[in-house]
């Protein structure tokens, strides 16, 4: 069984999408041949697409952007659709998705999962299942917490859900969850530690984050008369 894992986070360094892939890997069938890809602002190479079409299982792990798939990953998905091999005897690829988002509620990932499902339909792939997990930016502070306990209890269920479908080959409805952690504490720590902490590192005060930069010189479309001239 060939499994291709795609990290669709465009960030440099550690990513929450990568965190999820790291937690998934040890749970996959031992005999699986696993390859990993990074899809960020830099496009995949031609041979990467050929390889992806030779895989049995594709796992997409990506952050939610504007309630949907981020543009660089969407670009890769459209490229993949265009490169569909004409040979209909090609093996059927099963697709799985792990979406993580910044807001607390994991079910805000629902539309991104729908987009992946619609993509599968267009490409002739089988959609296996997916999960969406909220408060993704918490992962980096939970590196030492075992999956399935404490705030990562629900992540344990989510991974189990995905792995069961990968192993059995059965389709399952997507699953949405968030850390087992009080929402108000998440909100407080995101604001105080995460945003204000980042501002401080950049020499800014919390109130600076509310700045309203003025209108820069922009190129407006010329008035209609100019066009006709």
């Amino acid at each position, binding site marked *: 069984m060939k499994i291709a894992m795609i990290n669709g986070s465009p960030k440099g360094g550690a990513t929450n999408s990568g965190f999820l892939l790291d937690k998934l890997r040890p749970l996959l069938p031992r005999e699986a041949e696993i390859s990993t890809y990074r899809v960020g602002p830099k496009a995949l190479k031609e041979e990467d697409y050929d390889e992806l079409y030779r895989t049995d299982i594709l796992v997409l792990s990506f952050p939610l952007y504007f309630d949907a798939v981020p543009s660089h990953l969407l670009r890769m998905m459209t490229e993949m659709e265009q490169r569909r091999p004409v040979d209909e005897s090609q093996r059927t690829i099963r697709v799985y998705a792990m979406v993580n988002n910044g807001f607390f509620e994991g079910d805000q990932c629902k539309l991104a999962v729908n987009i992946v499902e619609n993509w599968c339909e267009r490409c002739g792939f089988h959609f296996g299942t997916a999960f969406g997990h909220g408060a993704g930016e918490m992962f980096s502070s939970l590196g030492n917490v075992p999956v399935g306990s404490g705030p990562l209890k629900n992540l344990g269920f989510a991974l189990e859900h995905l792995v069961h479908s990968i192993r059995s080959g059965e389709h399952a409805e997507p699953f949405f969850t968030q850390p087992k952690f009080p929402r108000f504490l998440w909100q407080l720590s995101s604001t105080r530690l995460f945003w204000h902490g980042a501002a401080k590192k950049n020499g800014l005060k919390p109130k600076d*984050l509310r700045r309203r930069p003025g209108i820069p010189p922009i190129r407006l479309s010329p008035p209609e008369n100019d066009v006709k001239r």
Partner: protein
Amino acid sequence: MKMIVHDLEEAGEISWLREFGAGQDVIGSEDAVIRHCTGCFGCWTRTPGTCVLKDEYRHLGARLAVCDEMILISRCTYGGYSPFVCNVMNRTLSYVLPYFRTLEGQTHHQPRYEQAIRLTACFYGENMTEKECGTARSLVRANALNLGAERFEVSFYDNVRQLKEALA
């Protein structure tokens, strides 16, 4: 003023668009090469309100803030926007604040600016499925909520000709 984000270059409809978008802030893929968002949150925590990527699209938040309407004209792509229109959306993150508020029981962003936009999305494409249209409708609704839009509208067209007739 309206901000009109479109992918009509591919459909060869630039001359129509020039007329339709006269005097508005029109954003298309032929204007300049657009970079993808790198997820660094610099537009919130380094240069608040402005993207740190140095290209023509770094001021999208401030540009949107002087508009009363954002019109998205996009090929319907798996029930979402096409890669270019999606890219522009992703680069407007600075329009909102990193801070949270609760709307309809869920977390969303606080607005950075006092003004609110109307969000209008016009999707075109041959044989869009029911499911894709459903996803697209929900997506525009969700985007409107997050951007603090006061209203939103979604419409679908089988081809660009129909779309042009409807917008004329």
